[in-house]
């Protein structure tokens, strides 16, 4: 695995998996290593982390090193549009430039864009479930999938469209297909399709900020029937039947894009890398290793990639449609989330740490979705208070205002009762509600009061299956103990976020993709 840029919030462990991915926006103050001749600093979609062996080959062929920094597509487009890539990146390589095209201020930063490979959105269904449903994979349409979800016979996981390109492409595929739109989606199509889409998204039992964690959570849960993602990602799973719905898909074509802010020598390097990527030998390597499809006619797709044709669903042609779709997904269509924030406000948080926590939480209130239930559970020697707020679609401001007010009132005092507080968080959440539930644990120290780690392990083991499905996302901060927090994440199926490398705001922000 290639070295990761400093400031990335990704934990090292995730990089080990083939599907590893990260959506963390690089920090504002981060200084990615300065430009170096023969090295291209590339802002890349997280899905491209499986290209390492291909890039090594390209380096051999061209002498040019590609150094990727992984990021979510929407964040990357934002960085381009606001000039944050100028002088810091030499090229941009996203799963698709479809969204970028909707932002003229971002598109004008791009000089050339050359598709390198392709992969369509698909659904991977456990083979046993395919059999139960009596499906012939080549005949399956989005309507059939919808019907199975409606009948309660199919559940699935997908990545968060706001943070991951695979999630966004999936959302567009589903919305185009179920709206019955005959050409590019319009605002009216989205409105018309809302009731059907809402039904469809009831079947979504897993959400994730990255494909890598989604894969792990899917394996761990065992009760989710399917995953929606790019064909190339799904083909990496055993026991999944990968289906490209007959009535259409959205395809990612991975254009390597050179930037207007770079000099001609850099763009020449980008061109040479592009050319190398499109040589027959490398195209063969790409399709064999990553199970994406080649873009040259002389190289056939890897064995197992069905070559039957599919309709390409047009990507929305305007930003208002794309953003509108995203907005309705977050606030209206998806199942709402319920989250308990277990917040360390022990004596050691006094001063700068507490004010950073307050500012991070306050910043987060701009991101909470309609219908979301947020519980603040500050703790010291024990849980200090339990305050629950719901963002009411009719009046979102009052809920958010209440969260800000409670945040402002936090004070630092007492010891650090991590496990006792976590147990109470599980108690608070209960079970049986149709939501995405999770617990965020922010602590700046080790456990010094109340239940011990072994007590919590036993407590967790005693929970029923439903409750055990609630993951804890611990945030490493201040003097907290990595091993202790990693254990909590592993035990509950969560993921550790590091706010010591990055920032507390960044960690809270990134966890949003998992809620």
């Amino acid at each position, binding site marked *: 695995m290639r070295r990761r840029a400093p400031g990335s919030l990704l934990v090292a462990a995730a990089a080990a998996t083939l599907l590893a991915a990260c959506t963390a926006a690089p920090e504002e103050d981060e200084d990615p290593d300065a430009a170096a001749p023969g090295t291209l600093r590339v802002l890349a979609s997280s899905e491209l982390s499986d290209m390492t062996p291909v890039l090594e080959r390209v380096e051999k062929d061209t*002498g040019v090193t590609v150094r990727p920094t992984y990021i979510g597509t929407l964040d990357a487009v934002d960085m381009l549009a606001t000039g944050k890539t100028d002088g810091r990146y030499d090229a941009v390589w996203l799963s698709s*430039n*479809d*969204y970028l*095209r*909707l932002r003229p201020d971002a*598109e*004008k930063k791009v*000089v*050339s*864009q*050359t*598709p390198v*490979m*392709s992969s*369509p959105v698909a659904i991977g269904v456990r083979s046993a479930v395919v059999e139960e449903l009596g499906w012939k994979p080549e005949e399956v349409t989005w309507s059939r999938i919808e019907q199975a979800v409606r009948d309660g016979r199919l559940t699935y996981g997908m990545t968060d469209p706001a943070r991951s390109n695979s999630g966004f492409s999936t959302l567009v595929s589903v919305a185009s297909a179920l709206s019955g*739109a*005959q*050409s*590019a*989606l319009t605002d009216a199509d989205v409105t018309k399709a809302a009731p059907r889409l809402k039904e469809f998204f009831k079947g979504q039992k897993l959400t994730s900020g990255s494909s890598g964690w989604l894969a792990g959570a899917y394996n761990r849960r065992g009760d989710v029937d399917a995953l929606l993602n790019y064909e190339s990602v799904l083909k990496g799973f055993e026991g999944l039947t990968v289906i490209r719905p*007959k*009535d*259409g898909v959205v*395809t990612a*074509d991975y*254009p390597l894009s*050179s930037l*207007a802010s770079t000099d*001609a*020598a850099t*763009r*020449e390097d980008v*061109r040479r890398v592009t*050319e190398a990527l499109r040589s027959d030998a490398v195209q063969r390597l790409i399709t064999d290793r990553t199970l994406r*499809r*080649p*873009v*040259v*006619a*002389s190289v056939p*797709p890897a064995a197992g990639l069905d*070559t*039957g*044709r*599919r*309709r*390409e*669903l*047009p*990507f*929305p*042609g*305007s*930003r*208002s*449609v794309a953003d509108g779709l995203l907005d309705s997904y977050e606030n209206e269509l998806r199942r709402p989330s319920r989250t308990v924030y277990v917040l360390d406000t022990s004596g050691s948080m006094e001063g700068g740490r507490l004010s950073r926590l307050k500012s991070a939480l306050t910043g987060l209130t701009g991101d909470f979705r309609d219908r979301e239930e947020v519980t603040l559970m500050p703790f010291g020697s024990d849980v200090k208070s339990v305050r629950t707020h719901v963002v009411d679609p009719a009046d979102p401001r009052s809920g958010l205002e209440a969260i800000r007010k409670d945040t402002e009132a936090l004070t630092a005092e007492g010891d650090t009762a991590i496990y006792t507080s976590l147990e109470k968080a599980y108690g608070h959440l209960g079970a049986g509600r149709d939501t995405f539930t999770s617990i965020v644990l922010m602590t700046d120290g080790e456990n010094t009061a109340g239940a011990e780690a072994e007590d919590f392990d036993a407590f967790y083991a005693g929970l029923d299956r439903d409750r055990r499905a609630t993951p804890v996302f611990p945030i490493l901060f201040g003097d907290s103990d990595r091993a202790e927090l990693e254990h909590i994440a592993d035990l509950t199926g969560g993921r550790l976020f590091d706010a010591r490398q990055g920032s507390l705001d960044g960690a809270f922000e990134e966890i949003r993709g998992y809620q």
Partner: protein
Amino acid sequence: MRRIAGIVLAVLLIGGVVAAVVAGRDNEETGTATKTVRMVIGSEKAEFFADPDVVKALAAKGYTVEAETSGSWAMEGLDLKGYDLAFPSSRAPATELAARHEVRGALPRPFYSPLVVVARRGAATVLAGNGLATLDAKNRGTLKMAAYLDAAERDRTWQQLKGAGRYGELSGTLFISSTDPESSNSGALYLAAASYVAGGGKVVASDAEVERTAPLLRKLVSVQGAQQTGTDAVFRDFVSGAGNPLVLVYESQVAALLDEQPDAEDLVVLYPDTTVNSDHTVVPLTENGKGLAELLGSDPELRRLAVRHGFRPQGDAAEFAAAASDRTTYLKQRLTGVRQAPVPTAAVLHELARRAVGQGGQ
């Protein structure tokens, strides 16, 4: 001479810096000055200039080229300082660039290529079965533009066409995918051809004519959703099996593909009965750029290579016809029967593109 070319070629593959050093040493030995020409070109010509035989032929005449691709209309926004020439895919953007950079004199147009529509056999057969096209050979046909525009006007879907049910991928609105007309030449020329046909064979010139044709053009573009900015990208998507069933590309791209892969399976090339040729036009910015432009048009070897890449050299139809003789199932040797739509002025074309994309409309 051949030896020198070989050396230059080999070191080019190693890297620019080394190349300069070795070429320099080589020059001392032979006295031949190598001129490095930096240029920005339309993406459809990238493969031509990357072809080792082209590199060799240019080197034989003392040229090393460094090419960078850009949408033809997007070249207006580039800082061309340090470049020797710009090579957009048609005359209109070239004329604007020439004015902007105060380039005087006639602009060389070494070769041209008509816009064609590529389809798979299934889609082509369905179009033919419904009076929207005729098939003239196994892999070649004619698209009836008036009938197509009429279908587009009425939002015809593939499902409404006889015989489409046999092909799962043929559903949704019937439309041709083009590039973004505001940044890319082929997308703009598509609008030129469509507006000419819709106007009953009259080129759009007045405000009233723009007004009249705008709704149709808006429709042709809006059904497509997000558009690519280069013909290379849309063609790549087509080749990889993704994308819309009908895609507007340059004939040269198809010819280049056939050169790599003579049996392109069920690919069908539909020549619109009214189309627009893209006159690849050079805007020389320096003396070296001018020299190279002249060479492209006059050097027999470079003309031969241009033909191999599917371009039709100006002035002599026989060269292309001879080369196309073994691929006539896909390509027309001569463009007889294909009507050339005149292209509106750059200002009108810009306005048509702006209205079609619906800037500020959404």
